[in-house]
């Protein structure tokens, strides 16, 4: 069972070779092609954001601010945050993998609104370009959180440019979420009931709810910041009676749930990977499915845990603290269920599974350290320190990026018809895991020691931990560049993949690799429960 056993002959006509030329890509309404457009766009944004991170870690090797001026450093971490959050993490799993897979997994020909889907991509690109323009024109130094009154009254950088860029990208996110929800409701193949949906779809559905309901609030908040900056109405300016804490409420109403936009689809990927490489259905399917929806709903009730020292009332702080603990429960349920799925499975250690293990481990640490921040007494000390930085990087990089890379390896044969090189892929997964922990674990320690975040220079006793962090970051960078190279290499030299190289269940594996433009030659009819490996015909597969 170790070689490619299925007939590796590629389909004669598929979505990649049906048309050629720039125009056939830039005007496409095929969800699979749009998924690839997103892949290219966010890879570009990821490496830009990564370049900013590199500069930050270089600066922090020494306690003194000797590499950059303070202003430049502040712009670097601002742009790192904006690029990574709005232009990489939020679109990562949903816009690339979700776009490619949502119609395939439910047996549809396309998303419900193909033209709006293409529009979403253009909006992300437009937003990204406007934001990049504001970088080139001089940069932004407010932090990705745009806290007022610094962003509205005191900063003299290109705040409006970046704000408009984010606003435009926000609409991209809204339309993607809207498209997914309608598609999942209205476009399912015959027999594809809600409880036969792959868990990847449940989690994308939950994330879409957040995109649709949360993003508009940050949109209006950004509009108010821009209005305030342009006309000095006073809405967030305390000198004119405005309340900067209200800005934080409105900002976090979206930006906390936004964390779940990033991590929910990643959880969905993990469910798929764990199931496939254990050859078992996910333990407690319905609990995992409902946990996604529960996270999406509870996620909206906890935002002010970002504001426990910011000047909210003691009583509101308690309400938000207890609600924050509630959102931890469905996350814990998921982790326990993934672990239980392994029990009596038939586990193979292919690269995607390594990433899934990485996700569970790092997400566990990231999630559990979240309890420290929901805990009022401890949050007072650790908020706004490197403890926070470590925590959210464990969730977003350790969680989301791990799952995103795992998913990319897993569905790469479906997307391109070629396998990635397994040896190199395992090596880079290992490098990423080690580099990541070396980068971010010391930050928990330096955070509890009291090093505030967004510090250009720091007291010398924090240096050892910062040097460890920077060393880890350079290892991590190697880990991220490697896949970039071998994925491109595999497009030409990779082994040909059959339609179902992993022997997985799921409709996407029942069509050719790469799939035809309309996904299926005839509309599939679903008669099996999800992840039913017992019913899968005994075929040989590479995994």
């Amino acid at each position: 069972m170790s070689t490619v056993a299925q007939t590796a002959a590629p389909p004669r006509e598929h979505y990649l070779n049906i048309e050629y030329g720039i125009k056939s890509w830039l005007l496409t309404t095929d969800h699979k092609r749009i998924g690839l457009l997103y892949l290219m766009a966010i890879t570009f944004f990821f490496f830009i954001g990564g370049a900013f991170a590199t500069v930050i870690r270089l600066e922090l090797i020494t306690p003194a601010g000797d590499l950059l001026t303070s202003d430049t450093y502040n712009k670097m971490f601002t742009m790192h945050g904006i690029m990574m959050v709005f232009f990489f993490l939020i679109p990562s799993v949903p816009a690339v993998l979700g776009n490619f897979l949502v119609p395939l997994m439910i047996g549809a020909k396309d998303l419900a609104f193909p033209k709006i889907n293409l529009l979403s991509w253009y909006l992300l690109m437009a937003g990204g370009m406007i934001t990049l323009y504001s970088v080139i024109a001089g940069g932004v130094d407010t932090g990705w959180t745009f806290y007022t009154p610094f962003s509205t009254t005191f900063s003299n950088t290109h705040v409006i440019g970046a704000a408009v860029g984010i606003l435009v990208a926000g609409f991209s996110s809204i339309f993607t979420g809207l498209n997914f929800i309608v598609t999942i409701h209205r476009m399912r193949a015959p027999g594809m009931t809600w409880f036969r949906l792959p868990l990847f779809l449940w989690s994308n559905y939950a994330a879409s709810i957040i995109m649709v309901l949360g993003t508009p609030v940050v949109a209006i908040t950004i509009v108010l910041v821009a209005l305030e900056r342009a006309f000095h109405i006073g809405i967030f300016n305390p000198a004119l009676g405005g309340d900067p804490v209200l800005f934080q409420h409105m900002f976090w109403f979206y930006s906390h749930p936004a964390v779940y936009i990033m991590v929910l689809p990643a959880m969905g990927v993990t469910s798929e990977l764990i199931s496939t490489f254990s050859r078992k259905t996910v333990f407690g399917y319905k609990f995992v499915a409902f946990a996604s929806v529960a996270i999406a709903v509870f996620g909206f009730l906890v935002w002010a845990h970002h504001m426990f020292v910011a000047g909210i009332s003691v009583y509101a702080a308690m309400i938000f603290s207890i609600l924050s603990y509630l959102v931890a429960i469905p996350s814990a349920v998921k982790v326990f269920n993934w672990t239980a799925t392994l029990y009596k499975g038939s586990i193979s250690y292919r690269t995607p599974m390594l990433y899934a293990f990485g996700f569970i481990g790092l997400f566990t640490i990231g999630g559990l350290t979240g309890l420290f921040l929901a805990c009022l007494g401890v949050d007072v000390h650790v908020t706004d320190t490197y403890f926070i930085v470590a925590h959210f990087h464990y969730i977003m990089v350790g969680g989301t990026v791990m799952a995103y890379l795992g998913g990319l390896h897993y569905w790469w044969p479906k997307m391109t018809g070629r396998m990635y090189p397994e040896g190199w892929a395992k090596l880079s997964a290992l490098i990423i895991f080690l580099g990541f922990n070396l980068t971010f674990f010391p930050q928990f320690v330096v955070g509890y020691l009291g090093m505030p975040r967004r510090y250009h220079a720091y007291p010398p006793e924090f240096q050892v931990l910062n040097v460890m962090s920077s060393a880890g970051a350079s290892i991590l960078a190697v880990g991220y560049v490697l896949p970039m190279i071998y994925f491109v290499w595999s497009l030409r030299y990779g082994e040909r993949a059959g339609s179902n190289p992993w022997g997985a269940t799921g409709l996407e594996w029942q069509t050719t690799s790469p799939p035809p433009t309309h996904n299926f030659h005839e509309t599939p009819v679903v008669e099996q429960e999800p992840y039913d490996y017992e019913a899968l015909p005994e075929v040989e597969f590479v995994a």
Partner: protein
Amino acid sequence: MSSETVTGPRTFAVIFVALLALTGTTVWVAFVNLGWFNPVAALAIACAKMLLVALFFMEVRHSSRITKIAVSAGLFWLLILLALTLSDYLTRWWPA
């Protein structure tokens, strides 16, 4: 779906007249001093008008279940935003 159950122009006309009447009422009430009840009355009337427009003009009453759920969810989320934000502002001056 709405295409099967066509609401006639007569119903629309009745609703339109009702909406105008409610507008007149709310303006009239605004000039009568009812103390704290003034804003309550104005907002209650606005709520009624919203329901009339949504149920009849927007045909929510003939919509699919999922549309009704979606509309309720939208209003519920708005309520979350308002209620939890006010949970801060209304308790800020309570003694610690």
